[in-house]
């Protein structure tokens, strides 16, 4: 692998962009209640941007702990704005929230990242990434030194987050990851990461608050945080379309501490190739869904030839089936052999099934005994009571 990674940049210069084949985004707001309007606006703004840049809804996991659009205190029902000019309704008519309300918990977040979910979990709520997926993880909420609060009820620590990413790396669930967090003392949240290929950035250093940008007097609360605001400003004004060639370095250079009112941090050391490689990654590698398409060659194959081939394949399959059937009916000995050879394979499944059934029966039987005993007990109590009464 070392050899290949050393060779690849030389060999495959035109193929450099196909190192990842899919882009995923996990956008998490962690706070409830009306006065945290800005956190939900942050998340929805990012959601809108990544969707604009081409990540399909099926590959965006959006976690919104509260529904600001339908909050009774919202003077503009059904809408969420991230700017006092109210030019852009973030709620729009096409948003897909995957985890909402009380589903946004630390446990669900960790389950999502490590894909340890129930079997009946719909695919839209799962992060189905592989070793060729780039993931953008954006979190915002109220946090502190090495923790981020979820819904004022629980908190995720920097260690939990690092362990979740560590497991993802072990299972090859990402190729490269961009971790962005906008909260107070945000930079402490990525200080414990240890898995490779994570590029992390946060809004503020330890003991620093992260501030809101401005308030909308009619909405009545702050509508966006500073760090997110200036990230969005870059993404919306500079990254106009999916063909943009701007790099992550350009994005990080656009951070102005005077404007953000805190010291945004970037962690490069986990990234393969260090700072230079990380800075040279395109913004679209994380925020967009750039897929290398392969054009089919102009020359198309002969149509009649293709149809002949299909017919031949069909004949081949029919022939195989016929032979199979013949061998089944004519040669019982052969069939016997085949079965014997295949026996070890279905056995475990059978034993599994048998086990499951047995447990069911057993518990059913036990339950019946318990139920009968309870009934008898009740009847006995009633009999004793009535006997005492009559006596």
């Amino acid at each position, binding site marked *: *692998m*070392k*050899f*290949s990674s050393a060779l*690849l940049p030389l*060999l*495959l210069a035109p*193929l450099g962009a*196909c*190192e990842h*084949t*899919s882009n995923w985004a996990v956008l998490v707001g962690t706070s409830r209640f009306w006065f945290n309007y800005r956190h939900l606006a942050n998340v929805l703004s990012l959601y809108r941007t990544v969707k604009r*840049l*081409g990540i*399909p*809804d*099926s590959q965006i996991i959006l976690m919104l702990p509260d529904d600001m659009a339908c909050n009774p205190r919202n003077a503009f029902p059904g809408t969420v704005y991230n700017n006092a000019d109210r030019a852009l309704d973030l709620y729009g008519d*096409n948003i897909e929230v995957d985890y909402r309300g009380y589903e946004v918990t*630390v*446990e669900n977040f*960790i389950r999502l990242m*490590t894909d*340890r*979910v129930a079997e009946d979990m*719909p*695919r*839209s709520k799962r992060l189905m990434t*592989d070793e*060729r997926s780039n993931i953008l993880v954006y979190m915002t909420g109220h946090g502190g030194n090495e923790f981020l609060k979820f819904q004022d009820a629980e908190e995720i*620590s920097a260690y*939990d987050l690092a362990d979740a990413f*560590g*497991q993802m790396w*072990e*299972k*090859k669930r990402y190729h490269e990851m961009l971790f962005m967090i906008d909260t107070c003392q945000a930079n402490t949240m990525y200080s414990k990461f240890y898995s490779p290929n994570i590029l992390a950035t946060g809004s503020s250093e330890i003991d620093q608050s992260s501030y809101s940008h401005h308030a909308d007097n009619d909405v009545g609360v702050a509508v966006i945080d500073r760090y997110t605001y200036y990230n969005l400003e870059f993404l919306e004004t500079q990254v106009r*379309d*999916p*063909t943009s060639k701007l790099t992550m370095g350009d994005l990080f250079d656009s951070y102005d501490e005077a404007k953000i009112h805190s010291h945004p941090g970037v962690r490069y050391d986990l990234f393969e190739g260090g700072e230079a490689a990380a800075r040279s990654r395109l913004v679209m590698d994380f925020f967009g869904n750039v*897929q*290398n*398409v*392969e*054009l*089919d*060659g*102009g020359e*198309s194959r002969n*149509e009649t030839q293709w149809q002949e081939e*299909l*017919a031949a*394949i*069909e*004949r*081949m*399959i029919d022939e195989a089936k016929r032979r199979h059937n013949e061998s089944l009916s004519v040669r019982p000995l052969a069939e016997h052999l085949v079965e014997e*050879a*295949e026996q*070890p*394979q279905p056995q475990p499944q059978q034993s599994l099934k048998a086990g499951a059934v047995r447990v069911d029966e057993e518990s059913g039987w036990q339950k019946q005994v318990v139920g009968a005993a309870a009934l008898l007990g009740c009847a006995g109590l009633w009999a004793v009571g009535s006997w005492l009464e009559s006596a």
Partner: protein
Amino acid sequence: MAPPEGADAPAAPKADPKPSDPPSESIVASRTNKQPPAETLESLWVRRWVILSFWAVVACLGLPMWWKTTAIYRADLPLQDMTDWADGKICRPVFPLRIAVEASPQVQDAHRLIRTTQHALDDLNEFSAHHLRLILADLPLPANASQQAIIDGTSSTGDDQDIALSVRLIPVETGETPRSHLQPYAPTLDVYYSPNQIPSASSTASPLATFVAHELHKIFADEQARLSYLLSASSSGHATKWKALSAETAAELQRQSTRVLKYAPTYHLTFSLFTPTSVPSAWDIEPALRQYLTPLLESFATISNFTIDTQVQLYATFSPSIRQPEYDEDLKAWTLRKEDLSGFINAAEWPLSPSIGEGPTVNFALYVPEQSQSPLLVKENGASSWLVPQWGGVAILNPTSSAAIPKALAKEALVPAMQTFSNQLISLLGLPQTPASLPLRLSTLTRVRAASLIFSASSTLGALAQVYQKMPSIPVPDSVAKSVDLTLGHLQQACDHFRDGRFQGALEHARIAEAQAEKAFFERSMVGQVYFPDEHKVAVYLPLLGPVAVPLVMAALKEIKSGIATLRRR
């Protein structure tokens, strides 16, 4: 114990005043000696027993209970085995392919011919894990049957699954010899030779043997490249093999590996018709699929299964972020730029993720441009279809005539699209382009898939072992250990099947191993709220245990102190 104490207590004040009969003395005594009466030895011991029994309860009942209820259950996993599998120490897949040689009885020295050919083959082979072994077919064909067999290509001894390829040696009088023909729909290579090319008893090399060896080597060269690429990519231990591949082959294989879908036992195919207007609103997709795609899917049946669904979406518009098609005067067509193609699928609005079933979805989108924008082509090479790696394919159906777009697309109109889609499906599934024989390509795919499944299951086991060791606070239920055992068993069986050259069996075992390994790693209950800061632990335990622990500890300390004091006094 309690009754004597109760009897003692009232007796003590009575016993005390007895020695001092004169009242004056008793006043003096009470003034000088206000100490309580000395404890009897008995009550002292009672108190000690009480304290001890409290401590005994704490130590024998409380502590084990606390330990038991807060302990995290971790089933034992065979960590060493798992790591060894992940490192590729236990199984290095080998690919012994059996090749049956059917020689007509005229060939007297068939055995010697095979031996010579085998020698030539072994000299050519650079990839030791992939090994071609020639065997003589059991039933030599009757002399006059050989000509007949050419016509009916399927009547070869194809029943035996373990035979990768049959080589039939057919003597001919005419034409250039030796020459060969690989049958496209049977794993059979026909070699034509003239009788004088049979090696004589004296010579060690013969043109026929060399020719057959070279032909076989050529046929399996692509497979060898694939397998050696797979081995080199899967673990660093095989890195040396990489050098055997030329740079172009390696680049091509790398490109393919990014394109090919990950293996799944079941794929879900979605065929969608998109149109920006209201026509066409129907298509004869069912008969088209039945005729043009089903044969292909059936030939894959031993490797994967497929489910299919289709949809029609009217008024499907482009995403606003891509550039709209431009008219090109030279091509006399509307054109899309290549860099915009990745945004052609309007992922935000076109419903392409049906979330149906288990397996991954492969999307095939057919776009019918509106009348005023057709024909619609790709600017760079005039193509009308493209493939999106690991996702699916897109085809634009431009009307053949200038007539209005029909309301319903007939089966015949779908033929070019179906051809495109079937080609795209073939490359998405990773079916190699060479050799020319379809069964051979399928069996190559079986081997590649089985080997890659073994690697992926092994690496999952390694990941699980790492997680188990690195995160001691994660609970590991017994079901994980069971799955791991199953995985190890099936991996071993798959490996054994590989060694014996039974590749279909190897694929089946590898499939189960992979499923079980995934099940073990993604076990639902293996999520802990892993990290608690120390201050949290203090905050939880202090209010609970503080009020209980203080009197216990203080009493014990006091008793020990007095015990020591008594000991010293003695």
